[in-house]
């Protein structure tokens, strides 16, 4: 009896489980602010943050400093992430696959790439600002650079760990290089490739904010920086929550897109 009741409880709870922690945090935040335990200039009331968020997303332009700016900011940020991540994919996947299969290429690239990888992305910011100025190019450079490493490394791991029998089977069927790459190597490495892409996209969002902190007029990271300057701490929180939400959604979209496009992504992960 008890175990049946427990089973029922778990079934009800299961879909709600991911939201338990956010809800608990929100509740704690609410209580702390309601009781006045922390002054509002450090932690604004969740109600104020909620209202600021609503104005930011749904308000009309010009009503307040941030009112209605969300669509433009989100679009600008998505464009930067898309371009930077795209560049990283374009370079990282081919380079990774080749160095995973060809020992001499791995020997050529390995030291340099692992050396560069050890440099924290943020240390590129001053150099990027000098080279590219403030704005799109710097952001794109930082995102592409940061996203490249997980994409490259995972593609290389996937390519080197592929079951050699699969490549032999392909050779026996008369597959030449092109067919063998697209028909066997890429599908065979797909679980790794997908992991690399997801890590890379996640990092893209992190470096987006870094790039935009350098002072561009629009974008979600720019809003956070701007809000700090003008003392709108509630807008900082709005920016953080929105980036979390959009980042999570873009991860889900990436997974769905890959599953839609590749049998191997659908059937092996």
């Amino acid at each position, binding site marked *: 009896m008890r175990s049946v009741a427990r089973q029922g409880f778990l079934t009800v709870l299961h879909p709600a489980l991911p939201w338990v922690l956010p809800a608990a945090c929100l509740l704690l935040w609410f209580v702390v602010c309601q009781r006045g335990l922390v002054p509002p200039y450090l932690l604004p009331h969740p109600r104020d943050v909620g209202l600021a968020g609503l104005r930011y997303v749904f308000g009309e332009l010009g009503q307040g400093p941030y009112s209605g700016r969300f669509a433009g900011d989100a679009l600008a940020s998505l464009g930067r992430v898309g371009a930077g991540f795209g560049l990283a994919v374009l370079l990282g996947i081919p380079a990774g696959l080749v160095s995973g299969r060809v020992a001499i290429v791995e020997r050529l690239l390995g030291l340099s790439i692992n050396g560069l990888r050890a440099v924290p992305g943020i240390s590129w910011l001053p150099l990027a600002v000098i080279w590219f100025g403030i704005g799109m190019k710097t952001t794109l450079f930082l995102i592409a650079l940061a996203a490249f490493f997980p994409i490259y490394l995972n593609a290389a791991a996937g390519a080197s760990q592929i*079951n050699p029998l699969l490549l032999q*089977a392909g050779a*026996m*069927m*008369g597959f030449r290089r092109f067919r063998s790459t697209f*028909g066997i190597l890429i*599908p065979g490495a797909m679980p790794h490739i997908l992991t690399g892409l997801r890590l890379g996209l996640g990092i893209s969002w992190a470096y987006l904010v870094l790039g935009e902190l350098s002072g561009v007029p629009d974008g979600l990271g720019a809003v956070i920086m701007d809000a700090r300057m003008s003392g709108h701490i509630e807008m900082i929180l709005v920016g953080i929550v929105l980036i979390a939400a959009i980042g999570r959604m873009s991860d889900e979209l990436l997974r769905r897109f890959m599953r839609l496009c590749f049998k*191997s992504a659908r059937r*092996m992960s």
Partner: protein
Amino acid sequence: MNPASRSVVPDACSRFGRPLLEVKGVSKVFKVNGSPKSILEGIDLTAGCGELICLLGRSGCGKSTLLKILAGFLPHTSGEVLLEGTRIKGPGPDRCVIFQEDALFPWLTVEENIALGLRNRAVGRGTVRREVERFLGLVGLGEFRDYLPREISGGMKQRVALARVLILQPKILLMDEPFGALDAQTREDMQGLLLQIWEQLSHTIVFVTHDVSEALVLADRVLVMGMSPGRIEEEIPVALERPRAKDHPDFLALSRRLANALRRSRL
């Protein structure tokens, strides 16, 4: 049944006077810790068209290495391998391999795995569909066409492996202990299936095994291999009627002879 009396004879056989496969003085030397180690030495063998020969040997005698050389996956150190009188050059669809382990493409269904090799050729969709249908039927997997490799048993996987190479109409089938990982009953079923298909399609088969009774159930001729370095020790024709009963006195006698040959091969 002797191979010449079977009804279907592949085109290759009628055109060709010499043995389909000729291996002449093949040896293989590997570098082990910097010093050369001879793995195969002076291997001579031939396989006639439609003949089923077994390479019988203990583990480590180099029989799988020999098969990889025939497949073109490994270069040999000296000697020559001729298929229809032409030197082989790398792997190709005229010499198909059935591996011991599962080598199906895990992201393709049973049907797609079987179709893959044909899709690579300039063959119409209708032909591909018809051929896939035929070979699915031949290995008895029609109902499982939409399953993924991870969803079917080991025996079924080897059926798929068989179908996906048969569809390419290879000149020779190279089988590397293909039933070694299966349970005893399934192994017997697969041996039966292989013989049935062989009698229908008359492929030339080189079958590697360490199992005396498997070699005797299948082969027209058994080549017993010795080791260090790997060489062909003895050639024993098997002139028993198929299907072969394992308790027949002739079967038992040959079986003892092969077991003795294997025992001697240790030295």
